[in-house]
C-alpha cells in the first residue's frame, strides 16, 4: 500500500509545483502596475482615402464600440453598427453596452488598448478633460472637415447645430462629439393643466399666482430631485441667465472673479427662497432622488419638475398612459434681458475616439455615419430625443415631450445658451450644487449662497490642478 501512496504524493507534489510556477510566473505579468502597459501601435486606416472613405478605413479592420446603455438604451447604436457593417461587410464589430464606462475602460486606457468608439456618458463617465489634456483623444477636425454622408457638398461641420462645435472643444481642438440635443426647463402634464385651465406663467408674478392656484387645488406646485440638487440648480441658473444675459453664464464658466456675486444670481436665489418660504415646494422633496420625485410628479403630487428632455423617455415605465409630458420655459424675473421663450440647451452623450484606438479611422467613420440623417433620424425615432444633426427629425411623428422641446429649441433659437463649468471643472460641480441644495431648503440666505459659491469658484480657479478655460 505504501508504493501507490508515495506515487500519488509525488505526482501531487509535481502538480503543486507546476501550479506554483504558473501562479508566481503569472504574478510578474499581473503585478505590472495598474498604470503600466505598452503604448502599442495604433491608428488603423491605411487604405486609400476616397470621397466615399475619407479616413482610409481598411475594410477588414474590426471595430470595437462601447456604448453607455442608460436612458437611451443601446438599440440605436446597433442600428449605427449595421450602417457601418453595410459599408464594410468584412469588418467584425464588437458591441458593448454598459453603464460602467469608467470601470470598464479605465484599465483599457491605461493598458494602451482602448476601444475605437466610446459613448462616454452617465454617472461613471470618463473624465474627458483629463483624457484630452493627456492627449488620449483623437482630434475630430478631420471628421468635421469631411463631407457629410447625405450631401458631399456639405461638410460635417455644417450639417450639425453650432452648439456641437462649441461643445466639442477640449484644449483648443475638437475632441468630443456630443450627439444628443437636450432641452432643459420646467416640465408639466399638459393634460392636467388643460383640464384645470392652467397656463405656464411668463412672469414671476404670474408664476406666483399660478403656484397659489395649484396649491389650493391640493397639489404641490414644484417638486425637485433633492438628492441630486443639480436639477434645481439648473432652474436657478436659467432664471439668472435670462435676467442678466449670457454674460452671467460666461463669467461663471470662465471662473471669473465675482461671477457668482452678480445681482441676477441674487434675484434668482431670492426667487427660489420665496417658493420655499411660501410652501410651494413639495414637502420632503429635498430627500428624494430623481426616481422618487419624478414618480411623485407622474402621480400628480406636484405640478412642475425641473429636468432635461430625457425625462419623457426615462419616465415611460411609470407615467400614466395619458400623461402628456410637456416642457415650459422658466418665468422671467422683472427687468430680464432675454425673452421668455428661450432656455438652456446642451449637447450630450459625448462620443469619443481614443487617440490610441486600434482602428481610429474606423471610429471616425462610425461617427460620420452616425451623423447622417438616416442614423440621426433613427436615434430620434427610438429615443424620442432630438440630435445635433440639422433637420434629421423632419417628418417624424413626435411625442408630446419631444414636440414641445423641439418647439422651445426653435423659439429660443440664438437666445438659447449652454453651460460648461460642471464638465470643465468636475471637482467643483457637486460641491456647488450642494450649496444650491442648502439654498432651496432655505437653510442659508441668498447672500450666504453667493459668498459660498464664489469662494468655491475662487478656490477652483486657484487650484494648480485646474485647467482654467474661457468660452467664446
Amino acid at each position: 500500500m505504501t508504493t501507490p501512496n508515495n506515487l500519488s504524493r509525488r505526482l501531487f507534489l509535481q502538480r503543486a509545483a507546476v501550479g506554483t510556477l504558473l501562479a508566481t510566473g503569472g504574478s510578474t505579468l499581473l503585478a505590472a502596475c495598474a498604470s503600466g502597459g505598452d503604448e502599442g501601435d495604433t491608428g488603423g486606416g491605411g487604405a486609400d482615402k476616397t470621397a466615399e472613405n475619407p479616413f482610409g478605413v481598411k475594410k477588414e479592420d474590426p471595430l470595437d464600440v462601447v456604448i453607455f446603455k442608460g436612458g437611451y438604451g443601446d438599440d440605436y447604436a446597433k442600428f449605427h453598427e449595421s450602417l457601418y457593417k453595410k459599408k464594410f461587410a468584412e469588418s467584425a464589430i464588437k458591441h458593448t453596452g454598459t453603464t460602467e464606462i469608467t470601470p470598464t475602460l479605465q484599465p483599457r486606457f491605461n493598458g494602451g488598448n482602448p476601444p475605437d468608439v466610446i459613448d462616454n456618458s452617465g454617472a461613471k463617465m470618463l473624465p474627458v478633460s483629463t483624457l484630452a489634456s493627456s492627449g488620449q483623444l483623437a482630434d475630430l477636425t478631420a471628421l468635421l472637415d469631411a463631407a457629410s454622408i447625405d450631401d458631399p457638398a456639405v461638410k460635417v461641420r455644417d450639417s450639425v447645430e453650432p452648439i456641437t462645435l462649441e461643445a466639442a472643444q477640449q484644449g483648443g481642438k475638437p475632441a468630443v462629439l456630443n450627439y444628443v440635443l437636450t432641452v432643459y426647463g420646467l416640465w408639466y402634464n399638459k393634460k392636467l393643466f388643460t383640464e384645470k385651465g392652467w397656463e405656464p406663467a411668463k412672469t414671476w408674478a404670474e408664476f406666483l399666482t399660478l403656484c397659489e392656484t395649484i396649491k389650493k387645488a391640493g397639489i404641490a406646485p414644484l417638486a425637485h430631485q433633492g438628492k441630486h440638487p443639480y436639477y434645481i440648480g439648473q432652474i436657478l441658473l436659467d432664471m439668472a441667465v435670462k435676467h442678466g444675459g449670457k454674460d452671467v453664464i460666461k463669467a461663471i464658466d470662465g471662473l471669473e472673479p465675482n461671477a457668482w456675486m452678480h445681482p441676477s444670481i441674487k434675484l434668482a436665489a431670492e426667487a427660489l427662497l420665496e417658493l420655499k418660504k411660501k410652501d410651494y415646494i413639495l414637502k420632503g422633496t429635498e430627500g428624494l432622488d430623481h426616481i422618487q420625485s419624478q414618480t411623485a410628479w407622474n402621480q400628480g403630487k406636484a405640478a412642475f419638475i425641473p429636468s432635461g428632455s430625457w425625462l419623457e423617455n426615462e419616465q415611460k415605465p411609470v407615467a400614466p398612459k395619458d400623461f402628456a409630458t410637456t416642457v415650459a420655459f422658466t418665468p422671467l424675473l422683472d427687468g430680464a434681458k432675454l425673452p421668455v421663450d428661450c432656455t438652456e440647451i446642451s449637447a450630450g452623450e459625448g462620443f469619443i475616439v481614443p487617440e490610441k484606438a486600434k482602428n481610429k479611422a474606423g471610429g471616425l467613420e462610425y461617427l460620420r455615419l452616425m451623423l447622417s440623417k438616416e442614423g440621426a433620424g433613427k436615434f430620434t425615432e427610438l429615443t424620442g430625443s432630438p440630435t445635433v444633426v440639422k433637420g434629421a427629425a423632419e417628418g417624424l411623428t413626435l411625442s408630446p415631450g419631444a414636440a414641445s422641446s423641439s418647439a422651445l429649441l426653435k423659439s429660443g433659437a440664438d437666445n438659447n445658451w449652454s453651460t460648461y463649468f460642471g464638465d470643465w471643472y468636475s471637482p467643483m460641480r457637486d460641491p456647488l450644487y450642494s450649496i444650491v441644495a442648502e439654498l432651496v431648503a432655505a437653510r442659508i440666505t441668498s447672500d450666504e449662497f453667493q459668498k459660498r459659491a464664489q469662494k468655491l469658484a475662487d478656490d477652483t480657479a486657484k487650484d494648480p490642478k485646474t485647467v482654467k478655460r474661457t468660452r467664446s
Partner: protein
Amino acid sequence: MRHGSYRFVASFLAIPLALYAIFVISPFAQAFYYSLTDWTGVSPKFKFVGFENFSTLAKDAVFRAALGHNVILLIGVPLLVIFLSLVFAYLLNVGGRSNSAGVQGVRGNGFYKLAFFLPQVLSIPVIAVIWSVVMTSTDNGLANTVTKKLGLGTSEYLASPKIALYCVMWVMVWGSVGFYLVLFNAAMSGIPKDIFEAAIIDGATRLSTFFRITLPLLWDTIQTAWVYLAIMALDAYALVAVMTAGPGGPDNSTQVMGLQIANNGFQFGRAGYASAMGVVLFFLTLLIAAVMLRATRRDRIEY
C-alpha cells in the same frame, strides 16, 4: 525527511501566498507609489511630485470634514453596537428565570437570535436602500407615517444636515448588532453556567453578575469586536454612497474618507491624490487598531 516536509508545506502555501501578493500586497504597494505622483487614473503617463499630494491634503477642508465624520462614527458605532449586542446576548443567555433547573435564557431565544442576525445576511446596499425608503423625507415615508400617527411629528431624516450622519450611524448599528450578538452569545455559552449559579446563590444581582463575571470573561471577544467595528466605521463608504444626498450631503454633512477617495480617483481624474488619501486612511486604520489592542489589553482569565 524534515526538508521534504518543509517543501510539502511550502507547496501548499505558495498559491495562496502568490494570490495574496498579487491582489493585496501589490495594490497596497502601488497605492503608496501613486500617492507620490500626479497620476490622473486614465493615462499611462504621470510624473513624480514628492509629498505635494499630502501637503494639499492637509489643507483640504472637505477631507478634514470627512475625517471628522469618520471619527464620530469611530466613537459612536463600536460603543453602541457592543453595548446593544452585549445586553441582548446577556438576556438571551441568562436573562430568563432561574430556578432549580439553573440559569436560563429568555423564552424563545432561538427566534430572537435569528431575528437579530437577519440583517447580517443582507448585503449593505440592500440595507441602505431599505432604510432610505423607511426614512423617506416626505410625509408618506414609512417612519414619518408612523411617527405622525403617534403624534410625534415628522422628520427630514437624511435630508437634514443636522441628523443625516446619525441616520447613517443608526443603519450601521442596526446592520451590525446581529452579528456581534451571535458572537457574544457564543462566547457567553462558553462560560460555565455553574459560575453564574454560584454567584446567584451567593446573592449576586443580575447586574453584578454581568459586570463581575460576564464582562471580564468576554474581554478578548469584545476587544476583537472593537477593532473590527472601528475598521468598519473608518470605511462607511457603501452606506453613505447609496443613502445620502449628493452623495455625502446634504452640505457635506455625511462626507467620509472613502467617498472622497472614490470621487477623486474615479470622477475628478485625480488618482494620485486619491491614493494619498488612501495612504492616510491606511495608517489611521493601522494606528487605531494598534492603539485599541494595546489600550484594552488585560490578563487572560482561564476557566
